[in-house]
């Protein structure tokens, strides 16, 4: 029996109901899992709510490798993020993480007390135990990405220590590559190894890269205020310096329009990956994997629309509403076509918000139109063969443009018909006793024959309701 409170809630958030109906393709079965694996899923839940849910709906073959892959990267991230660990200690941990995760029983207890995911590293032995059980080809992929990402993070930690920020767009994209592109590379290799995706993806690394770049860049735009408060900056100098002189100026209310133009340039930079993301997802061969990759992408295009020309991003954290998120969940777990509709819808919304005074107005409009064009290459609306057939058949003179005179006659006859009908009706009314002579005399109910009782006032009628 649903409670009154929940009924009220769903009345005002009807979209949320869909989540209740959502039927995942697969659901993990904890009763058949070892204790260490249960523990892994426990930490997965702790470290990421949203990712945990989608991971747990993956097919049984991908479920554990991807969950462990996520936890390993999260472990790395927890070390990198922790400002209480000095660099001399941090660097070897990051660069040697692939070795550490092979040591039975290894844990890490030296995270600062405020590090939110420190529990994961304290119990990392459980993850290591499960890593030993997965197929060797899957393990190799996870290990390889761990090495690459550990080194990348170490490089960035050193840069951060030296006060070097993200300067050029190339550096910005390199950063996104380390934190997201590499994750994508690992996932793609896992999908292909498990034969859940078209192996051609391995030959098109730029598609995988776009998947990661699109998500990461969108998050970086959305989180600009939070990062600013944490004294971190990911927006490249090459972009913001075109709009303001100093980074902090971007957050001053008097510079709002400049800040918005700067954020549009960031949005444009992210938008260029959207078509390749769709292309990538066309290569996925299994529903649960499709859902896994599509949900974050749908959220990203919606987030991009939300942050586009939205001054609030410089004041507080913005997020898509729960209702929208649920709707997107539903729409991104059907098929590529429905997902393309989502992308088209948000592309048009972005185009609609676009402002001609923005220096990147034209490029943004074109980037949105290009998303629509790419969708056409996947699902063409027109078929040239059919068009040719239609043209052949419609041999009637194609130039049957209406002559204005012809149109005038048409409208004339409509007016004539209207006049005749009115005349008939008025005539009938007259025969029935309507007093047209009093119509303009100002007397009340002049059209009503004398003697008939005036009706009660409208107000009186309403009293009875």
């Amino acid at each position, binding site marked *: 029996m649903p409670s009154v409170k929940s009924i009220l809630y769903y009345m005002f958030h009807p979209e949320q109901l869909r989540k209740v109906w959502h039927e995942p393709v697969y659901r993990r079965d904890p009763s058949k899992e070892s204790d260490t694996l249960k523990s892994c899923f426990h930490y997965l839940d702790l470290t990421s709510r949203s990712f945990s849910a989608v991971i747990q709906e993956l097919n049984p073959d991908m479920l554990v490798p991807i969950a462990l892959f996520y936890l390993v990267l999260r472990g790395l991230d927890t070390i990198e993020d922790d400002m209480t660990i000095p660099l001399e200690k941090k660097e070897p941990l990051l660069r040697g993480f692939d070795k550490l995760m092979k040591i039975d029983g290894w844990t890490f207890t030296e995270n600062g007390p405020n590090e939110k995911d420190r529990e994961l590293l304290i119990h990392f032995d459980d993850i290591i135990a499960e890593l030993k059980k997965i197929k060797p080809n899957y393990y190799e992929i996870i290990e390889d990405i761990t090495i690459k990402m550990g080194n990348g993070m170490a490089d960035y930690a050193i840069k951060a220590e030296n006060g070097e920020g993200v300067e050029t767009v190339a550096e910005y994209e390199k950063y996104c590559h380390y934190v997201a592109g590499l994750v994508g590379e690992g996932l793609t290799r896992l999908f292909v190894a498990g034969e859940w995706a078209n192996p051609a993806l391995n030959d098109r690394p730029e598609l995988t890269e776009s998947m990661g770049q699109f998500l990461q860049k969108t998050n970086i735009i959305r989180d600009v205020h939070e990062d600013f408060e944490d004294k971190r900056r990911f927006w490249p100098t090459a972009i913001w310096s075109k709009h303001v002189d100093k980074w902090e100026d971007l957050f001053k209310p008097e510079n709002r329009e400049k800040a918005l133009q700067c954020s549009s340039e960031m949005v444009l930079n992210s938008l260029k990956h959207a078509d390749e993301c769709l292309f990538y997802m066309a290569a996925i061969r299994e529903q649960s994997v499709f859902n896994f990759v599509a949900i974050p992408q749908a959220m990203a295009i919606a987030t991009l629309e939300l942050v586009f020309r939205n001054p609030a991003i410089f004041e507080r954290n913005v997020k898509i509403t729960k209702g929208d998120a649920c709707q997107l969940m539903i729409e991104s777990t059907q098929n590529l076509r429905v997902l393309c509709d989502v992308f088209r819808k948000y592309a*048009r919304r972005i*185009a*609609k918000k*676009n*402002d*001609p*005074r923005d220096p990147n*107005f*034209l*490029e943004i*409009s*074109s980037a*949105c*139109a*290009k998303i*629509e*064009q790419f969708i*056409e*290459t996947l699902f*063409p*609306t*027109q078929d*040239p063969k059919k*068009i*040719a057939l239609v*043209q052949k058949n419609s*041999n009637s003179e*194609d*130039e049957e*443009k209406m*002559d*204005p*005179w012809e*149109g*005038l006659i048409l409208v004339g006859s409509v007016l004539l018909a209207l006049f005749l009908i009115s005349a008939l009706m008025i005539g009938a009314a007259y025969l029935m006793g309507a007093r047209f002579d009093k119509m303009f005399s100002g007397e009340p109910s002049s059209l009503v024959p004398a003697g008939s009782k005036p009706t009660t006032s409208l107000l009186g009628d309403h009293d009875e309701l």
Partner: protein
Amino acid sequence: MASEKPQKASLGRVLVIGGCGFLGHHVVNLVLQHWDTTAVSVIDLRCQRNRRPASDGVEYVEADITDADNLTKVLGRLRPDVVIHTASPQAQGSGAVSNELFRKVNVDGTRAVVTACQQSAVKALVFTSSASIMSDNKTDLINANETWPVIRGKNQSEYYSETKANQSAPRLRVQAAAEELVLAANRTGDSNLLTASIRPSGIFGEGDVQAVYHLVNIYEQGRTGVQVGPNTNIFEFTYVENVAHAHLLAARALLLTAQASTVPLDHERVDGEAFLITNGQPIYFWDFARAIWRAAGSDKGTAHVWEMPREVGMLLGWLSEVAFGLVRKPPTFTRQRIVYSCMTRYYDISKARRRLGYVPLVTLSEGVRRAVQWTLDRKAEEKK
């Protein structure tokens, strides 16, 4: 990439027909800038405007291409390797000519050009067609490529039928017929002439007195507040220099084909083929107009814009047609204009990218900047 930095590949002796026109003079400029040549010449009806300085060594010849005998004589003297045929009277706007003249220049003139090329041992002929020849002016073209059918008239006599002004469909059929003539001449008879056709969409740029000029007028009259339809229709506009570039890439490809001993494979063939050309930047129709207005000085966003439903626009267009019809004048505002502004027409140019190595030289926004600057300068001069 070959087309991004052309290493001054050679085109031999180049002749640009219509080389003083809007597109033609950009072709001449680009030939001089980017290509290695042994001679550059121009044939045009009149050669005063858009003329290169004498130091550039371009030979200008005044000739009427509908005069077939004279044209053959001129070509026999110039002996070009490459002919770029851009000549066509203005199809719309203030300088529009009658349909009869339009047909004469496009069909008879083009036939004369083809014959003259064949008789003068020209190696490569590149013809300027239009992407609109695939459009019936009513139906959308959604990501269309060269496999889309070309609209054709039922028979030749139709080209002679004089119809009312501003009905562009007969003119498109004329252009389609001219393209057919050129492509049919590829590798025919005794001649070794190779031909190709370029179909640009929405060409604009310096020297353009149609699209951009008209839009700047709308801005100056303060009529930027109306938008017909929801602006979800995508269009393609192409900066003139990119169109010129595509012509020269095609010419180069034809010359290379002429040198080769074997006929190229179907999927890499340029001779006898048509190529759609755009800026590769599809855009929502009204956004292009707004970009022009912005470049012309507008400080307005979109808050003031009233979105007029298409149906209302059609009604107003019809009323205008009736009103002008009653006073027996060609209408300035028509239903066709409403249809145009609500139509989706964009193209897939991967054939040109693949076979010609076409990459646009100038971005859309840079093109808009240049075109609007030119238009404003010209308007300032007119006022003087």
